[in-house]
């Protein structure tokens, strides 16, 4: 959370509580970054060049949470001569609660 600074719902517990949150929460962009890193590791250039992801933030992550990223490949097709794969992706905390859920797609080059 050190990327968030010291104010707002991502850096200040009091600011977060004003919005009904229990305390400062991790930025959604940071959680998205972990999913993007997983997809880059999995698909490489096929994600950097033509990859897509769409996700919903369903539960907040807080400092000291341990999060893990997950993905499940689904249907594949051929698009412009390249194999295209659709995936389900999600991120869980240490209690197995889903924090981020979404879909992604990439090419297999």
């Amino acid at each position, binding site marked *: 959370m050190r990327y968030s600074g010291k104010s707002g719902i991502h850096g200040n517990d009091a600011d977060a509580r004003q*919005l009904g949150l229990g305390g400062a929460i991790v930025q959604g962009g940071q959680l998205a*970054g972990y999913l993007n890193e997983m997809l880059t590791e999995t698909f490489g250039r096929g994600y950097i060049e033509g990859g897509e992801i769409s996700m919903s933030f369903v539960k907040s992550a807080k400092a000291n949470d341990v999060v893990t990223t997950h993905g499940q490949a689904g249907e594949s097709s051929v698009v412009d001569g390249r194999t295209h794969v659709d995936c389900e992706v999600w991120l869980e905390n240490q209690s197995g609660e889903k924090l981020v859920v979404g879909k992604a797609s990439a090419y297999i080059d």
Partner: protein
Amino acid sequence: MTTEWQDLEIGVETGRFSLLVTNEIIDEYVDSLEITHPWYTSPNSPYGGRIAPPDMLPKLGMDVLFQEYAGRVVGRNMRARQAYKFYAPIKPGMTVSAIGRLTDKYEKRGKRFVTFEALFVDEAGNPLVLDMRTQYVSQAPAAAA
């Protein structure tokens, strides 16, 4: 001056962003998020040198492109949904730019949401990253003093 919900203008420009991508910027970004993929931390990528994480530009540009406008005009907000489309690698030495726009507003189950969009491009106008984000509006902006 506050803006009433019904007066929020779809298509309005919400901010502009420009950045010269440097190794130092990439270093700071991957270090702060503890990202370790070798394509981002070393020259060992299939692109002839290191590249930046594909979502780095949206993260660096979000305040200027969307959040300053949202906080001032729309109200307190939280990320509800995020989508990206990645077109090409982001490399050190690139000068990138983007224009943010408010692309949608809607109410669902008694809650208000706004959607923003920005396409990051390189110097030649080639697309790099499309950032589409939906924010839940949790509190209207305070009236001007």
